[in-house]
């Protein structure tokens, strides 16, 4: 995992730069260290990580766009309660949608879908951006933030699943139906894997190592930031 630096190319249109800076330069997880709780908790394999990424993206897009549309009617003294209520509404919708369409996956990540509402990443983007910008810009910013969060979550999920179980994409049928049963890649079929990677201490240690190596890479200004796996 690395933190690609954004080149300040003047030819890049403002839409792309809004999106890219939200996703990479201001990556919510690795750069701003927001939303660490779900990042560490549900990154024990790829399917959990993907499920929570999609759920967070839905809440982020829904609440940012709603607030960008109604921002002129929200009185500034009561804005935080308004934001929180709108986020809570979208979170409830996500919970109901997941219960309806991906119940088995929902059972695995229940608590962390429910507490999307207190994810400081979402309130932060709304307070800093969506409550001041028109709808298209707020949409792009939310999409970029959601992508950045998903990249961080999936990278950590893939590394932990690989080290902990020696597989990748196990259990994707929980999200994509029976066709996804064949997607599982078994990289290391013989061994049990290092169990610690999937346990809570592994989450902290691997995330810390990734962050440290990412910093080191940025410092060296490597031309192609390659992903580094801690061993």
């Amino acid at each position, binding site marked *: 995992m690395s933190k690609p630096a954004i080149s300040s190319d003047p030819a890049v249109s403002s839409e792309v730069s809004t999106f890219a800076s939200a996703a990479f330069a201001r990556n919510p997880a690795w750069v701003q*260290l927001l939303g660490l709780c779900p990042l560490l908790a549900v990154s024990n394999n790829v399917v959990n990580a993907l499920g929570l990424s999609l759920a967070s993206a839905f809440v982020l897009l829904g609440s940012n766009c709603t607030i960008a549309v109604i921002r002129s009617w929200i009185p500034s003294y009561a804005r935080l309660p308004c934001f929180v209520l709108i986020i809570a509404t979208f*979170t409830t919708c996500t919970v109901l949608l997941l219960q309806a369409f991906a119940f088995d996956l929902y059972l695995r990540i229940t*608590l962390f879908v*429910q507490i999307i509402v*207190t994810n400081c990443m979402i309130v932060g983007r709304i307070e800093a951006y969506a409550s001041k910008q028109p709808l298209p810009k707020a949409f792009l910013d939310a999409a970029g933030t959601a992508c950045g969060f998903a990249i961080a979550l999936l990278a950590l999920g893939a590394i932990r699943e690989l080290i902990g179980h020696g597989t990748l994409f196990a259990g994707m049928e929980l999200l994509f139906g029976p066709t996804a049963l064949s997607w599982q890649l078994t990289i290391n079929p013989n061994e049990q894997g290092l169990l610690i990677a999937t346990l809570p201490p592994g989450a*902290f240690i691997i995330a*810390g190592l990734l962050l*440290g190596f990412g910093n*080191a890479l940025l410092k060296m200004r490597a031309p192609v930031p390659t992903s580094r796996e801690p061993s």
Partner: protein
Amino acid sequence: MTDLALILIGSLLVNNFVLAQFLGLCPFMGVTRDYETALAMGFATAFVLTLSASLSHLAYHGLLVPLGLTYLNIIVFIVIIASAVQLTELFLRSVSPLLHTALGIYLPLITTNCAVLGVALTSLAQSLSFLETVVFSIGAALGFTLVLVLFAAMRERLDGAGVPASFRGAPITLVSAGIMSLAFMGFSGFAD
């Protein structure tokens, strides 16, 4: 009585909310720079956490279940938490202005502390009784404070340690939190 003691130890040490369940990491990373603020933040959160988990339990069983509105639990709980934070602030301001100035800036942050909502939702998911919920949330709150204070003490040592430049700050904090989490795994088996 044994049940309650087991619930207390379970939520305090075995399933510690910060190190085993990854809840409340923002204040854990943010305010553990020094010992006094960690202690103050820990106690403010502990108070709000216990209050809001108990109130959420009452609201869920007294209001949402009879009305058939249980799917609204997240919205109702977050409103209760925000009100509990406001009440705590008003209460502190009138009773102990000194403590209020000390805790002032941390109080609003508690609303977005996922441990507070997490405890309310977890005690609901485990279908605990009212008394059990109170004990569970006291355990969770004490566990949160304990980890915050332990970690603040450790970070004061880390500041003086020879950490590689790229690992200064957040990376080394996460790695040492992992090692502390490893130590807390030693409690597993005491209670569940």
